[in-house]
């Protein structure tokens, strides 16, 4: 049996259009719904995260207060520390010379007599008397071992020899030196020592002042001191 479709084509066209329109309508609704759902989900996440951020930032404000306390405590320190440091450095400075002299005594040969000991900056100058050249030599060799006190130890001279009896003058006498005592009664000499640790007084530097502190004199200028 032969089937002949006598219906016009535009009838089927309409059905196709309706089907396509409904499919696209559903797709449109799905897209809109999906976007709204996504946006809603992001909004929820934003609310939760905002709460967490507020909580965390409250904690960091506490931390900032703590940090300000640290800075405040540290700022109190410099004026106090500078005074304490100056006092302690000065008291340590006062002890340096007795320590130096006591160390010097340990390295001084017993048969050497000191006439004067004068410190000045990074040098120590000693006027001494030796009974003999051997004593002077032993003394010098002792002093050379004091490497923790002195960088260098030098003496000015030892007496020479002269054939004129009773007088130690003429050739052999060190130039510029007064007449040395006869070797039999000893001779004077000068020792110059360079200190490993120069002795220098501390200076007070208040915080914020540039360079060296310049403490004010307690005396008024031009004033005469009170009588005894």
């Amino acid at each position, binding site marked *: 049996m032969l089937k002949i479709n006598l219906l016009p084509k535009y009838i089927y*066209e309409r059905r196709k*259009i309706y089907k*396509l*329109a409904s499919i*696209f*309508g559903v*797709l*449109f609704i799905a*897209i*809109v719904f999906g*976007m709204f759902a996504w*946006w809603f989900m*992001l909004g929820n996440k*934003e609310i939760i*995260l*905002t709460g*967490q*951020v507020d909580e*965390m*930032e409250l*904690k*960091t404000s506490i*931390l900032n207060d*703590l940090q300000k306390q*640290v800075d405040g*405590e*540290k700022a*109190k*320190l410099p004026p*106090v*520390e500078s*005074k304490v440091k*100056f006092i302690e450095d*000065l*008291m340590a*400075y*006062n*002890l340096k*010379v*007795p320590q130096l*002299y006591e160390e010097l*005594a340990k390295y001084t040969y017993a048969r050497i007599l*000191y*006439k*004067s*000991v*004068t410190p000045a900056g990074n040098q120590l100058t000693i006027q001494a008397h030796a009974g003999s050249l051997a004593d002077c030599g032993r003394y010098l060799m002792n002093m050379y071992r004091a490497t923790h006190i002195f960088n260098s130890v030098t003496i000015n001279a030892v007496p020479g020899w002269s054939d004129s009896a009773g007088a130690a003058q003429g050739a052999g006498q060190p130039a510029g030196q007064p007449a040395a005592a006869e070797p039999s009664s000893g001779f004077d000499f000068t020792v110059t020592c360079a200190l490993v640790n120069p002795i220098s007084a501390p200076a*007070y530097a208040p915080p914020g002042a540039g360079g060296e*502190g310049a*403490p*004010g*004199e*307690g*005396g*008024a200028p*031009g*004033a005469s*001191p*009170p009588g*005894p």
Partner: protein
Amino acid sequence: MASKFKVIHVVIIGVLTCIIAGASMLFLMVKPAQARLVVLQERYDKAEGMWQRKAQVERELEAAKQKNHLMFWKLNYYMDNKMPNLSFVNRPVGMVQLWKEQSLTLGPLLKSWPTKTGVKLTSTFSLPAPPVSPNALETSLIKIPVGNFTVVGDFAAIMAHIRSWNKFPRLVQVDPVSLTGESPNITATYAVTVYIFPKGDPGPTIPMAGAASAAAGAAGPGGPGDPGMMPPPGAPPGAPPGAAP
């Protein structure tokens, strides 16, 4: 009746409508929300990073407090044991305290110290006069040069004496000691300087006391040219108040 729309029209319109709707909602709603989330997350990460330092900051605070406590204790100890009760909060009062210290107290203390510490003082010394203007005070550190001391004793006594200056009831600088002579009569010579830290912060200057350059050694009170000091009415110029002309 044939429709004007064909299938291809519907497809084109449908696809365009879906794309436009999807794109506009994406860029107008979803993207801004995502950008806000990114910003919030950065803020959170930054705050959390800072919060991780809490333990360290607490340790720093504790250490700073302990160091401060120690330094303040030391300073208080030195101020109580090495400094006179001297404060320039009230400048005129402080100035008078300094006069008493420098002109009355310090001299006898210094003079008696060598004998107390086992040596004999063979030199004399004097202290300079204190300032007479409250505006001319040195408010941070007062330095009083005493001059040279010469003491006599044996070596051990002299060394003990030099060390004992750290126990003197004032802060003293003992400059390097020169020794001459033979034990037990060694002569030691050294310079002494006294330092005083006033307590507290200095108060304001006193306008009535004139400029800070007005100091002792200039003319006395009522003297000619003395800034701020006017002779009383009726008194001849240059005479102190109440003095007979």
